[in-house]
């Protein structure tokens, strides 16, 4: 019953590298979760994200010069396990490699990104056949600032900012429906990142000295929201699935408090397009995806990128 489609959908939301060393993830999307009748799922993915455009606060989108290359690579391990009939636990562990090259400057850093854990409850199980009634899941995820943020960066181009740097709590709902060879998914998520203080080196260097000193600042990122609409087609008997998704993300502007002043940043927003192709062999799936942040030309106050992803997912039967 559309098991293959559900296998693939689980990958789509297992995390990706996000453009912008400064800003990390604008909404983490959906963590890995079990959407079908399985006991566990383990996913290992690689993503390569190249920044191609910049969206200004005005909404204007400008192409990056070909002289510079800003690339974010991610290796992510994620897994989910069914702990009871309708409850499952998941974890997401990313490793991030940020690289920057220009005519005169080259910089790269690698580190563990922001680790997250998730609990999911299937509130709308599919207990009997229905032509229209979907499966429904509620989830809560917590992200820890295990990766360094731009406010803790010690490198000129901030490539060592491999995380967002904040405790992030998110809650969301996912609906999934498989109808014959077609599958559909819709999700909504709201998140909040709490205020955090940093001893930031970005603001203070002693006069006539190369030594870095630090200044305390407080940053409140605030609220975020995201949504996904996805559909796919799995032709009979060939083991492939072809899918597409539209993703929207929004994050409110940060509030930054210095010793003597308060600064408010602008909000961020993005609408992007994802395409993916998967092949399934028994309980293992191999997935190829492509995400284009600039496809719709709808974004605000952030770097836009194109992402290629490869992943392998292994499912454990009940």
């Amino acid at each position, binding site marked *: 019953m559309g098991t293959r489609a559900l296998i693939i959908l689980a990958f789509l939301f297992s995390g990706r590298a996000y453009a912008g060393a400064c*800003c990390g993830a604008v909404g983490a999307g959906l963590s890995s979760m079990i959407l079908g009748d399985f006991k566990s799922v383990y996913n290992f993915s690689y993503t390569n994200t190249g920044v191609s455009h910049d969206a200004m606060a005005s909404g204007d989108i400008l192409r990056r010069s070909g002289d510079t290359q800003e690339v974010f690579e991610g290796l992510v391990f994620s897994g989910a396990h069914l702990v009871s009939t309708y409850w499952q636990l998941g974890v997401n562990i990313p490793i991030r490699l940020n690289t920057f090259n220009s005519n005169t400057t080259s910089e790269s850093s690698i580190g563990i990104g922001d680790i997250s854990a998730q609990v999911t409850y299937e509130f709308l199980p599919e207990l009997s056949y229905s032509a229209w009634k979907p499966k429904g899941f509620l989830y809560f995820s917590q992200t820890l600032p295990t990766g360094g943020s731009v406010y803790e960066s010690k490198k000129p181009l901030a490539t060592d900012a491999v995380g967002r740097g904040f405790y992030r709590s998110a809650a969301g709902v996912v609906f999934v429906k498989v109808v014959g060879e077609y599958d559909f998914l819709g999700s909504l998520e709201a998140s909040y990142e709490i205020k955090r203080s940093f001893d930031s080196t*970005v*603001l203070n260097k002693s006069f006539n000295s190369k030594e870095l000193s630090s200044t305390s600042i407080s940053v409140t990122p605030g609220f975020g929201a995201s949504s996904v609409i996805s559909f796919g087609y799995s032709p009979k008997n060939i083991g492939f699935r072809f899918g597409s998704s539209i993703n929207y993300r929004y994050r409110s502007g940060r509030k930054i408090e210095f010793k003597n002043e308060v600064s408010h940043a602008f909000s961020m927003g993005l609408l992007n397009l994802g395409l993916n192709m998967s092949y399934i062999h028994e309980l293992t799936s191999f997935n190829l995806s492509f995400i284009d942040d600039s496809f719709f*030309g709808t974004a605000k106050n952030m770097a836009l990128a194109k992402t290629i992803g490869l992943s392998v997912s292994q499912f454990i039967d009940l």
Partner: protein
Amino acid sequence: MKLLGILLFLLVGCGESPFLNDEGELRSVQAVESELYLKDSEVSINTFWQEGPYVFDESKILIILQGSNGTTYREEISFKVKLWMPGMGHGSFPVTLEKIADGVFLASEVFFTMPGYWDIHFQVFDGEALKEEVKWGLEL
């Protein structure tokens, strides 16, 4: 299958796209000279780009402080330069200031880490306390 094809077509046909049409313009930056004034200290700040301004690559700024009598400022001053991107809510790697002569400084390791609007803060300190500052806004 027909439904999938129609939906894909609608997606592709949804207005203009920088990706499909390869639109968008290459960023270009312009060298800027500007005069700024620290009112309490009665100091004019004259800035000249020695290199840049560049996005991503290192820029360098020659900074000349002028006193009220029109000559270069010769008194002791605790002077710092800070880069901040107000729209994004973050700054950049701290600038290195080197005193070339009385009232003349070279700011190096000036890294604008992304395109957009930046404020260069010129700050005067009294010990650890910020005495006054003036901002120079740049769109890169």
